[in-house]
């Protein structure tokens, strides 16, 4: 049984060395993770387990920080720190806020 993260030796294409600066939201997730880690709420080992546990699909379709975000959400729910309902409600609110300020990409446009 090979986890989706365990890719050493598998065939793949050329390494794209294009650099990209992290966007602010990626840095914010990184910072959030660092603070939550420093407080002992989530350990590095737990975080790895949750990222691996997102499934093959997550590795195919999500970016690195998207996987971290998804894993963090799941951990906050399982540790009873946040509820799914709270998270869903806040995402809806943020979507409305972004739509109002014209910052939502067209693929979300139908929601507004």
């Amino acid at each position: 049984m090979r986890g989706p993260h365990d890719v050493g030796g598998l065939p793949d294409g050329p390494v794209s060395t294009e650099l990209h600066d992290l966007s602010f939201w990626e840095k914010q997730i990184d910072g959030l993770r660092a603070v939550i880690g420093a407080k002992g709420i989530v350990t590095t080992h737990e975080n790895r387990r949750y990222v691996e546990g997102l499934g093959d699909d997550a590795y195919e379709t999500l970016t690195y920080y998207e996987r971290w975000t998804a894993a963090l959400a799941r951990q906050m729910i399982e540790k009873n720190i946040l509820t799914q309902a709270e998270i869903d409600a806040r995402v809806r609110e943020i979507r409305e806020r972004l739509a109002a300020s014209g910052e939502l990409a067209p693929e979300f446009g139908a929601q507004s």
Partner: protein
Amino acid sequence: MSVASVVTRNDPWTIDLAPGDLVRVRDDYPPGHIRTPVYVRGKVGRVTRCFGPFGNPELLAYRLTGPKEELYEVRFLQRDLWDDYAGPDKDTVDLDLYRHWLEKI
């Protein structure tokens, strides 16, 4: 009470692998959080360093406590890992592996 029953892996006296020893990585595929990559399982390498006892990630990933495991740097020849390795015979890969994944041979 035998000596073995009071000595745990946390005790440095139980170190039983030294640099130069040949080891085979367990060819097992348990579920859970495993830090031994699939590509070295079942492969033979040589111990190159002993790092001392470290927390076992298979327990830590679930916030469980248990005995620490000795951590070793193990060196594999590329040609022992891949049948069709394209480079020179001397090329190597080093991995850091916990004692419970290593069988002394």
